[in-house]
């Protein structure tokens, strides 16, 4: 028989159920919980609120699409004439290459100029309103993003990107939890000329929230690839990863099969990753079907969810009067904002309020 074996836990349960404070927290949790809106709600919102503006915007989109088509045709004609000139007039190869590059560049710039105002307008008209539809108190800045310093602070990715951009920054308070997230595209480029290599460090949604427990160290949860591929040997390899800190082996086998955890303190990592939080993270991963990266540093939780497509952008050559893309924008936003609920961040029963 070991000390503190069962009674401590009993006390915890009795205390939790008996406390008036906890009853109060219940209302708080309910108040803080994002009331999941159904697809019917979204459809109604789309039909009544968005539709009139979408109709106006659709006209603008068609105009721009037409202009871009004209630009493309003009460039093609120019290129065609250029190649004829090359064939019949024996001009030099370099001049042709320069001419082609120039054509493409001018075309690109012109297209960018055409669409720039439209994209901003679209975002303020559509994306911003969907953000407010999900939660009224959130603010949206289409051109801002999570700064690079914060991205590095999370310690999720060890490579420092030298090409970093992002947009669609959302911030605000969901219940008791301060959140912010944005789309990011962080790349690392090495070498120059022919040896230039570029690889993606991270592309997707990067999310930050205020965590509900106090802690001092750092705990990092990454998708588990080594253990999945190499089993026990993989685990051994993970424990030798000197860049990451101590390997934390947790007792939830399902969680362990999906994730690998590194941390500065074995006990603190388990304090953060309670049995319930492990189950919630596993659920979240399974529900979204995405890779999930998490880190707990400086009283904050950072989450990175990779995407391969560009998020919250208008489609220029497809009609706006379609519910499908609206649903996708909503679902992408909901995935990020929903992290608060998924990880139960609004439960404030610990000393951090």
């Amino acid at each position, binding site marked *: *028989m*070991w*000390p*503190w*074996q*069962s*009674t*401590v*836990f*009993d*006390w*915890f*349960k*009795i*205390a*939790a*159920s*008996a*406390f*008036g*404070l*906890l*009853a109060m*927290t*219940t209302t708080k*949790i309910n108040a803080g919980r994002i009331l999941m809106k159904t697809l019917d709600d979204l459809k109604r919102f789309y039909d009544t609120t968005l539709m009139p503006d979408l109709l106006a915007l659709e006209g603008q989109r068609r105009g721009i699409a037409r202009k871009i088509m004209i630009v493309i045709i003009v460039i093609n004609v120019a290129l065609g004439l250029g190649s004829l000139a090359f064939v019949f007039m024996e001009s030099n190869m370099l001049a042709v290459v320069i001419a082609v590059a120039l054509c493409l560049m001018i075309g690109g710039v012109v297209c960018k100029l055409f669409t720039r105002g439209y994209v901003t307008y679209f975002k303020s008209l559509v994306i911003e309103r969907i953000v407010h539809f999900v939660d009224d108190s959130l603010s949206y800045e289409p051109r801002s993003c999570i700064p690079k310093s914060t991205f590095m602070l999370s310690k999720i990715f060890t490579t420092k990107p030298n090409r970093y951009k992002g947009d669609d920054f959302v911030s605000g308070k969901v219940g008791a939890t301060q959140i912010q997230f944005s789309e990011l595209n962080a790349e690392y480029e090495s070498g120059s000329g022919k040896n230039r290599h570029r690889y993606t460090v991270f592309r997707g949604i990067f999310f930050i929230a205020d965590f509900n*427990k*106090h802690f001092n160290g750092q705990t990092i949860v990454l998708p588990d690839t080594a253990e999945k591929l190499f089993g026990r040997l993989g685990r051994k390899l993970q424990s030798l990863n000197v860049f990451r800190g101590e390997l*934390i*082996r*947790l*007792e939830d086998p399902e969680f362990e099969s999906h994730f690998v955890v590194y941390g500065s303190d*074995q*006990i*603190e990592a*388990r*304090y953060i990753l*309670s*049995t*319930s939080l*492990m*189950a919630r993270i596993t659920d979240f991963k399974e529900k979204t079907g995405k890779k999930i990266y998490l880190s707990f540093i400086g009283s904050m939780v950072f989450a990175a969810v990779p995407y391969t497509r560009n998020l919250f952008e208008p489609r220029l050559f497809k009609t706006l009067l379609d519910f499908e893309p609206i649903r996708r924008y909503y679902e992408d936003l909901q995935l990020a904002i929903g992290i608060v609920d998924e990880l*139960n961040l609004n*439960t404030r*029963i*610990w*000393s951090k*309020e």
Partner: protein
Amino acid sequence: MYVALGIVVAVLFVIVLIYNSLIGKKNQVKNVFATIDVLLKKRYDLIPQLVAAVKGYMRHERGLLEEITKARARAVSGRLSDDEQVLLDNTVSKALGGIMVAVENYPDLKADKSFMHLQRTMTEIEEQISAARRAYNAAVEAFNNAVEMFPTNIIASMMGYKTRSFFEIREDERRPVNAGGLLGN
């Protein structure tokens, strides 16, 4: 000759590695065990505050408050065997549970700000104790694996190391603790 020497050096090297890793694992177990002790002491330190906060309100639970105060005094005196310590911890836990249930009868106390803060701190320490117990079990698992698995078991038996027991976690404790569940929603 050189080959034989090389083999001897290699074997010695492996032995040293195994020896050190065993010591490391044993110390890890000891270290986490000590942390549990620290956390329990932290909980003991909160008891006087708790008693002070509730005694103005609780008229019918004087016996309970006295019992917990006495138990705490004995626990912090530090002249106890392990078994006595276990018994005392259990007594304290039970008494704490009793107080927390009794709080239900005193709405003024429940609404008291400093008491609420105290309760949050208590919840935090309970979860830290639970985390430390899980860390202890993980450390024991690593240690036991080393003691029982080949080839580390040879060195371990030469060092007189034996497997250690885990904190037993009952079936109902294995389930994820869901605050919502505890709150009855």
